[in-house]
């Protein structure tokens, strides 16, 4: 059985928004954005947001809920995503490798159908919304493998329909330019000017224990069930080269050095890791405020 991690990092955009308001920040860059629902929240509250990540599906979702302001998915368009269309040739065996291991035969067929349908969508915005909605259906299935008796059986297309419809609700404009890019941390930091930089750096070697719900969906998007995300991180700043504590500290310090032009840098960490992180931040910035509402949610707000 696949392991679904119990602890996930908690990014509370409403709290980040409160910090941004306190420091009069109207724009923010997040080079480790992950699933950018927090950027969507900040966008909704008028902040210009710019995100970056190495995984393509995160960036695609960002195009749906962060970059695009007016994406609409009509019922007929959602139907074209969640069901097999007559006349279209599908690669139904694309995810056969997962059959019997993680999913049923029907679910694997749907994964192939959804993959092809999403690839045929007409706009980046629609594609992003579809990927987000379908990912939630996929997470439901994975969760159900662990709790088969606790969760209801829902027809795949019905589940996907409800989640895509739900994802569409979050689309909103903020009359600002918002961007997402698939690139490394330093490039994202250098590509934009903003009032604040938000850093939630991955824990050391965390890419080796990435959540199945994350890496499997990148594999789905790439259309390759054997895909692993390790290669994406292998040569990255926080990849294998930052495997030991001094190397990890150097990587973090290099990010903070690159962020010199940002008036405010917010580093999210945990109570457990704050001792390691705080000294690195204080080496670069003289003023650091610690906002620590929870053991799993600590913010170091560094100003010049």
């Amino acid at each position: 059985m696949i392991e679904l991690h119990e602890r996930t990092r908690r990014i509370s955009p409403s709290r980040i928004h409160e910090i941004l308001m306190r420091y009069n920040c109207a724009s923010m860059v997040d080079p480790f954005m992950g699933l950018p629902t927090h950027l969507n929240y900040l966008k909704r509250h008028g902040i210009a947001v710019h995100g970056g990540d190495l995984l393509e599906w995160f960036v695609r979702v960002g195009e749906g809920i962060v970059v695009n302001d007016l994406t609409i998915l009509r019922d007929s368009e959602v139907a074209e995503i969640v069901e097999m269309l007559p006349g279209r040739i599908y690669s139904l065996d694309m995810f056969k490798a997962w059959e019997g291991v993680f999913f049923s035969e029907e679910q694997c067929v749907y994964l192939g159908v959804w993959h092809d349908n999403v690839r045929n969508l007409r706009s980046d915005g629609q594609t992003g919304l579809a990927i987000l909605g379908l990912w939630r259906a996929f997470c439901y299935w994975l969760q159900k493998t662990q709790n088969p008796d606790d969760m209801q059986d829902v027809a795949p297309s019905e589940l996907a329909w409800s989640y895509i419809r739900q994802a569409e609700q979050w689309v909103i404009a903020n009359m600002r330019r918002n961007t997402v890019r698939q690139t490394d941390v330093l490039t994202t930091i250098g590509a934009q000017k903003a009032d604040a930089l938000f850093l939630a750096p991955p824990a050391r070697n965390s890419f080796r224990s990435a959540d199945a719900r994350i890496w499997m969906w990148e594999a789905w998007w790439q259309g390759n069930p054997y895909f692993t995300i390790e290669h994406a991180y292998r040569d990255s700043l926080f990849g294998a080269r930052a495997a030991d504590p001094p190397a990890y500290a150097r990587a973090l310090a290099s990010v903070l050095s690159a962020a010199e032009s940002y008036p405010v840098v917010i580093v999210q960490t945990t109570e457990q890791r704050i001792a390691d992180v705080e000294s690195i931040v204080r080496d670069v910035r003289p003023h650091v405020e610690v906002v620590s509402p929870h053991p799993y949610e600590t913010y170091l707000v560094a100003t010049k």
Partner: protein
Amino acid sequence: MTLFQDTGGDPRAAAAQLADVLALYGALGDATCGNPPGFAARKAACAVSLATVAELDAATRDALYFAGLLHAVGAIGNPAYRKGERLSERMTRIESWDVPAQGARACAEIAGLPSESADLVRWQHECWDGTGYPDQLRWHGIPLPATLLSLADAFVRAGEPEEALASVSAQAGRAFGPEFGRTFTMWFHLTGGEPEPAQVPLDALQADPAATAALLERIADRIDAHNGVAGRWRRVSRLAEAAAGVLGAEPGAARDLAVAARLYGSGEIAERAEDSESSFDPLARLGIDERAAHAVGAAAFAEGNATLGGAAAVLRARGEWFDGTGKPHGLFQKAIPMTSGILAAAIAYDSLDHKDRIEGATGTQFDPRVVRAIFDVARSLA
């Protein structure tokens, strides 16, 4: 003048006063978003009962109680509910997603409240699958007590207990983590779906009478902002309290008047339309029904509240006319509490463009002595 009775330094009495003000705050939040009276108290009790079954510690249960009580205070002043707002259905829904975060900010401002309560309010509408609001947290990123608050909400909202059981089971893996369905089912069978009324955990409150009075003023500010009349209660209160002094009101009556001046806007809080009391001429009979309805509505919030209950009579009678033709009960002259007459005259005076018009209503709508006092006070304050 102190707003509440002296507690003589007794921390438990001070905590009881704060708890009463929090109960009022919770009731105002419920009224704002259209929940029935008593919803917040039931939700708090249910959440505490669930937390007991889930074997959470006492401090968390206390924080959960107050989070349940204050679950909807973020709705006060939110554009989705604010008086006079005309938003599309979509924008109303989007604005309403901010209610929990605004509630958390309101809770964080309350001195003496358990610090965990604010974030439980913030995350009470998060869903296991990440489709909740405001933060779209997912999976185990949602704190367990916040999920229990969410389960309590589902229970109290359901028409029948069995309906709640079915709805929670159907939402396993979506609104709630799969294991919460089991927790809820166990709770349901242990309690029969009828949670005991919870005792207010007074020991969890670090109350200070001055901070409690400041909280009531903060609530009054939020009521006025919600009604689109920012700063109104402060002007009315200054006038009314000074007039009560001129007319020699008893200290107890003056205290009730001061509380009433802070709360009278609460009668309008559940009203969405712009055409309400503030848009009618305060000296015309047109709008008398609205004024009386608001007076009764505001009185209902104070009634039964040990700390604020004295203001209920003042609030209820402020729609009465001196000549006995007012509403809701048609009280005549001395049957109308003097403090109610002062409050009514101060409200009318505050909303008039030409203040001298109020003299025309002397003897009919207002007690002549009260009008004279209001004019004297207004002159001295100017």
